[in-house]
């Protein structure tokens, strides 16, 4: 059985890295050698406090929006609102919508309009792709960073 050598500098270096990066665990293996350092995350407690008052309090618009969109908001193709305002899906009343789910769009194409301070702001596609989902409805308010639609 071979003697185990501790490279304290090595571990300390990893610890420092852990600290700096905010990671909770580092594991490095090379051949049959393996080093793993872990730093347990802080409790536990905050989650409960954070969750409970919100539940006990009146629902906010934001909380509802967040709940409804949270799963999709994480999608890498999500286009979020760059401003607070009212979203319009049609160039004018009675017209066809700018885009519909399933449609393919090219970069720079107008996706929808957000009216803020009486100004109509065209929101353009940041990349080409297929519209897989539209979260917002016509003539409804949107917040900053609220998911608008997904381009896949």
């Amino acid at each position, binding site marked *: 059985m071979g003697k185990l050598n501790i490279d304290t500098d090595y571990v300390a270096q990893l610890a420092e890295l852990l600290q700096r990066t905010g990671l909770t665990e580092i594991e490095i293996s090379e051949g049959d050698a393996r080093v793993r350092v872990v730093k347990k995350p802080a409790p536990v407690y*905050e989650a409960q406090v954070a969750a409970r008052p919100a539940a006990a309090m009146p629902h906010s618009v934001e909380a509802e929006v967040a709940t409804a969109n949270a799963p999709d908001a994480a999608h890498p193709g999500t286009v979020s609102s760059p401003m607070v305002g009212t979203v319009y899906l049609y160039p004018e009343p009675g017209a066809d919508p700018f885009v519909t789910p399933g449609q393919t769009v090219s970069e720079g194409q107008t996706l929808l309009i957000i009216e803020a301070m009486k100004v109509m702001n065209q929101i353009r596609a940041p990349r080409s792709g297929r519209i897989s989902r539209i979260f917002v409805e016509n003539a409804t308010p949107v917040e900053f*960073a609220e998911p608008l639609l997904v381009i896949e």
Partner: protein
Amino acid sequence: MPGILPIKKLLIANRGEIALRILRATKEMGIRSVAVHSTADGNAMHVRLADESVCIGPPSAAESYLNAAAILSAAEITGAEAIHPGYGFLAENADFAQMVIEHGFIFVGPTPEHIRMMGDKVTAKAAVAQAGIPTVPGSEGAITDDETAFATAERIGYPVLIKAAAGGGGRGMSVVHARSELAAALRSTRNEARAGFGDERVYLEKYLDHPRHIELQVMADRYGHVVHMGERDCSLQRRHQKIVEESPSPVITETERRAIGKTVVQALEKLGYLGAGTIEFLYQDGQFYFIEMNTRIQVEHPVTEMVTGIDLVREQISVAMGHPLSVTQDQIRIEGHAIECRINAEDPKTMIPQPGKIIAYHPPGGPGVRVDSAIYSGYTVPPYYDSLIAKLIVHDKDRDRCIARLERSLAEFVIDGIPSSIPLLRAILAEPDFRESRYDTGWLERFLAAPPGS
């Protein structure tokens, strides 16, 4: 009542404890509330407690809490009738107030004209001086000959301050204590000013070597009524940041209070002021000298609420709706003593802000204790904004009892996970100079530079 513009929904254009303070007033008035917040403040207390909330931008204040367009859009999409700016951020931005009004909302504050007037030190000083408020006496303009200098110094009294017109930040100034020193000091300051700023013009001003910061709280309605609610003594400052505030000031007599109160009320009646405001003075040797007027609610407003029993934020919203003041001057009584301590998320020694996560939070309770704070256990103080995390305000019969109550309250206060200024506050309270009211606006910086233990 004729001329009443009812507010059914109010947007709070601020964050932190003052947003929560305004929110509490709306709840108690039966007004629906809209919180606006940056992406960093999604978990903020006022956001959670508000009837509605709107995310208005990224963490950077410039793109969120200072983003007038986003705030107005938020008011529009939520159907709010009024906007309360709190303090800081857009509270004293005349253009914002103007925009609010032009978009058809009620601005909970004074007119844009008054904000603009008081926002400029020169026009403010001129306006209040004309309305009868005492200002720091000095030369009318630049002084070019010794004769005028002598005459001016004689008129305003020694010591006097020679200030280079182009100076600032403490540079290009010299203090002259007697007539015999004046001519030489004028020469050297002019030379210095010419060398330093390429401009040898100097002014003369009365020099205050141990002033206290005393400010008067006022409130005015649309019908020309103005009242004052006594003073706050905010002399404990570091780099012009107030740390401890109290009311009444331990150095002001009832006669002085009435006299300056009357002067201020008459001046604001002349100016046609509306809403809450604070006239800040330096006070020394029985004289008041105007510094500036703040056209908003102040951080330290609770000390006035505690001694007068008047809810200032409620009153602000009420007069903004067009209601007359709920009190007349003779109904306002200063009862007992109140002191506010500002608790910041900062290193108590270096006073460097230390945002981070609060592991445990337990505020003090019991009689005479009020805590205004938007933090809670598990909350993370974001690094983007002001470090004020809680205000502890204590009321009792007299100043000595108020200090004793403050000490026991600070000892009960638990904020864990990040450092706070509680140890500094306890150290200040223990100082004989504080207990015996022997402090001026320079005291705290001297104390911090050389604490007794050093």
